[in-house]
C-alpha cells in the first residue's frame, strides 16, 4: 500500500509562525485505506436525564447502549449476527457507572456475545475514535461489518452494592471535576487552570488576532447559542430544552435575547463566556455501523451511501497550545483532508459538525478547518450563515450547547446528524441543498482531536 506524506500542515502551523521555526518536525504519514468503508447505519437515543425524563426513566447504561445499537442495526437493515466486532465507548464507566471493562457486559445486550471488541475512551471525541476503530477494522480486511456504540450516564451515579437502576443525582461540583479535571494533566496543567478556561483563551487570542473587541466576541458567542437553541428546539431528541431563547428572554423581561445573554441571568464562568455559552451534560447513547462501500451500495438503494473518505487524530497535552488556531485542530484536519483529497475546504465542504462544548468553537474551529476564511467566521455567525438555511451551516442538531452533551456518545449525534443531512432526513433542520461532503470534528479532553471527512457516494 502506498504511504504518502502530507504537506498540508506546515504553512498553517501557529507554533511555526510564533516561534519562527518548526517546533514539531514530525509528520504523520497518512496512507489510504486498503478498501473503501461506508456508514451503513446510525442510531441514537433521546438526550435527557434517566432520573427525570419519562422517555429514559430508570434505564441503565445497558438499555441506552442497546437502544442506540438496535436503532443503528434497524437503519442498516442488519441483525446482530451480521456484525463481526464491537467497540464500546464509555468514558465515565468507573466514576458514574461503577464498572470497568463494560464492553464485555454490554455485548450480550446487543446479541453479540463472544464477538471481538473492547471498551475505549477519548473523552468527548470518543464516538469519532470509535468510528476510527470500526473503519480501520473493516478497511484492513479483518472484518466486514463493525459497530461502534458509545454511552454515558452523566447526571446521576450508580450506587455501590445496588442494582444499577438505583442512582443518586450527581453533585454539580463533582460533575465539573469529572468532566474538566480528569481530562487535565494533573502533573503539569490542572493547577494552572482547566479546560473551559483554556478554550476561552484560544478565543480571546482569536479576537486579538483579528482586532475584534471583547463586546464583539461576546455578541458572537451569544448569537451561536441562540442559533443552537433554535436548532435543538427543532430536534425531537433534545429533552433538556423547552423553548427558544427569544421566549426565555421575554420571561425575564428582555425583548432581545442578545441582551438577555449579556445579563446576570447568564453568569460568567470565564472572562467573557457565560453559563449559557457552554454545554450541559446529558444521559444518552449513539451508535454507528460501517461496512465496505461496495457492500453498502448493494444493501442501500433508497438513499446516498456515506463513505468515510478521511480520518484524522491528534493527541496533545493541551497546556502547550497557545493562541488560535490550535495546532491539534490543524494537524487532525490536515490528516483527514490529505486522506480525503480535500484541497480547498472552503469550497469543497458543504457542512461542518463541530464539538461545540463552548460557543467560541463556531469561530475558532471552523476557521482552523478552512470552512471559513481567517477572521470571517465571527461575521458569518452574526449574519446567520451557520443556520440550516445559511450558506455555511454548522451543527444543525443543536449540538452540545443545546441538544446536550452525553460525553462518550457526543460526536455520534453529530455524525448521525451529518448522515441524516446527507440523506435528506432532517425535517425542519434540513439544509436546502443536501450536503455531499462533510467534515466532522470531535474534541476530547486530554487533549484529542478526532476528525472525519464524510462523502456521499
Amino acid at each position, binding site marked *: 500500500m502506498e504511504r504518502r506524506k502530507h504537506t498540508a500542515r506546515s504553512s498553517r502551523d501557529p*507554533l511555526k509562525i*510564533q*516561534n519562527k521555526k518548526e*517546533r*514539531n*518536525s*514530525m509528520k504523520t504519514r497518512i496512507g489510504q485505506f486498503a478498501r473503501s468503508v461506508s456508514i451503513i447505519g446510525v442510531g441514537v437515543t433521546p438526550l435527557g436525564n434517566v432520573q427525570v425524563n419519562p422517555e429514559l426513566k430508570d434505564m441503565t447504561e445497558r438499555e441506552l447502549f442497546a437502544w442506540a445499537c438496535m436503532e443503528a442495526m434497524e437503519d442498516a437493515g442488519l441483525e446482530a449476527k451480521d456484525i463481526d466486532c464491537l467497540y464500546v465507548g464509555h468514558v465515565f464507566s468507573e466514576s458514574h457507572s461503577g464498572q470497568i471493562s463494560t464492553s464485555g457486559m454490554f455485548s450480550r445486550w446487543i446479541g453479540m456475545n463472544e464477538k471481538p471488541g473492547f471498551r475505549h475512551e477519548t473523552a468527548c471525541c470518543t464516538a469519532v475514535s470509535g468510528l476510527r476503530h470500526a473503519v480501520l477494522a473493516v478497511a484492513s480486511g479483518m472484518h466486514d461489518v463493525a459497530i461502534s456504540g458509545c454511552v454515558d450516564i452523566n447526571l446521576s451515579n450508580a450506587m455501590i452494592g445496588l442494582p444499577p437502576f438505583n442512582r443518586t443525582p450527581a453533585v454539580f*461540583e*463533582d460533575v*465539573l*471535576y469529572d468532566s*474538566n*479535571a480528569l481530562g487535565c494533566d494533573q*502533573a*503539569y*496543567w*490542572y*493547577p*494552572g*487552570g*482547566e479546560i*473551559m*478556561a*483554556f478554550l*476561552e*483563551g*484560544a478565543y*480571546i*487570542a482569536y*479576537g*486579538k488576532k483579528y482586532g475584534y473587541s*471583547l463586546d464583539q466576541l461576546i455578541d458572537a458567542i451569544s448569537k451561536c447559542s441562540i442559533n443552537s437553541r433554535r436548532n435543538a428546539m427543532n430536534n425531537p431528541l433534545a429533552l433538556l430544552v423547552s423553548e427558544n431563547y427569544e421566549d426565555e428572554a421575554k420571561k425575564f423581561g428582555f425583548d432581545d435575547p442578545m441582551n438577555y445573554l449579556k445579563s446576570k441571568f447568564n453568569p*460568567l*464562568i*470565564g*472572562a*467573557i463566556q457565560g453559563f449559557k455559552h457552554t454545554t450541559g451534560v446529558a444521559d444518552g447513547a449513539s451508535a454507528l455501523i460501517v461496512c465496505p462501500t461496495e457492500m453498502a451500495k448493494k444493501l442501500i438503494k433508497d438513499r446516498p451511501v456515506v463513505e468515510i473518505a478521511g480520518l484524522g487524530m491528534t493527541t496533545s497535552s*493541551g*497546556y*502547550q*497550545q*497557545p*493562541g*488560535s488556531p490550535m495546532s491539534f485542530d490543524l494537524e487532525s484536519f490536515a490528516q483527514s483532508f490529505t486522506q480525503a483529497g480535500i484541497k480547498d475546504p472552503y469550497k469543497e465542504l458543504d457542512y461542518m459538525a463541530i464539538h461545540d462544548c463552548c460557543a467560541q468553537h463556531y469561530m475558532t474551529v471552523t476557521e482552523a478547518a478552512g470552512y471559513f476564511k481567517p477572521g470571517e467566521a465571527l461575521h458569518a455567525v452574526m449574519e446567520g450563515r451557520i443556520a440550516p438555511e445559511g450558506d455555511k451551516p454548522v451543527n444543525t442538531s443543536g449540538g452540545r450547547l443545546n441538544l446536550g452533551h452525553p460525553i462518550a456518545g457526543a460526536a455520534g449525534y453529530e455524525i448521525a446528524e451529518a448522515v441524516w443531512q446527507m440523506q435528506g432526513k432532517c425535517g425542519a433542520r434540513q439544509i436546502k441543498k443536501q450536503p455531499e461532503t462533510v467534515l466532522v470534528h470531535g474534541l476530547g479532553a486530554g487533549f484529542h482531536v478526532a476528525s472525519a471527512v464524510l462523502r456521499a457516494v
Partner: protein
Amino acid sequence: MVKMQPYVKMWYDYLEEGKIMGLKCKKCGAYEFPPVPVCNSCSGTDLEWVEMKGTGKLISFSIMQLMDKVQVKYGRRYIGQVQLTEGPAFTATLEDFDLNKREELYDRLPADVNMGIMQFDGFKFVSFKLKD
C-alpha cells in the same frame, strides 16, 4: 539502557527550591517545558536539566470562575497562556492583575511577563506576572 528519572517530582522539588527548570535537548537545542524524557522536536532522548529564563509573552487569558471541588480552594483568578522565551507555551495563573480590568488586559496583549512561583495547597506551581 534507558535511565528514567522521576521527572514530575524533580520538577516540583526544584520549584520548592525556587528554581523553574526545564529540559534542553542536546541534539537539537529545543526545550521541553515542563519536562518529559523525549524531545518532541527531534525525538532525541539525551536532554539536560536547565533553569528557564523566566520570561515570555502573554498570548491570551481567561478568568477561572467555574469552580470544581478542588479549584474552589484557589478562588477566581486569571489564567494566562504564555509563549516562553525558549519556545514552549505554558498555561498558569496570572497573578496581581485586577479581575475587573479584563479590557485593559486584552488591550495589552501580547504582553511581556515574568515567571513566578505560586504556593498552592501543599505544593508550589509556576505562575506569571506582567512586567512593569
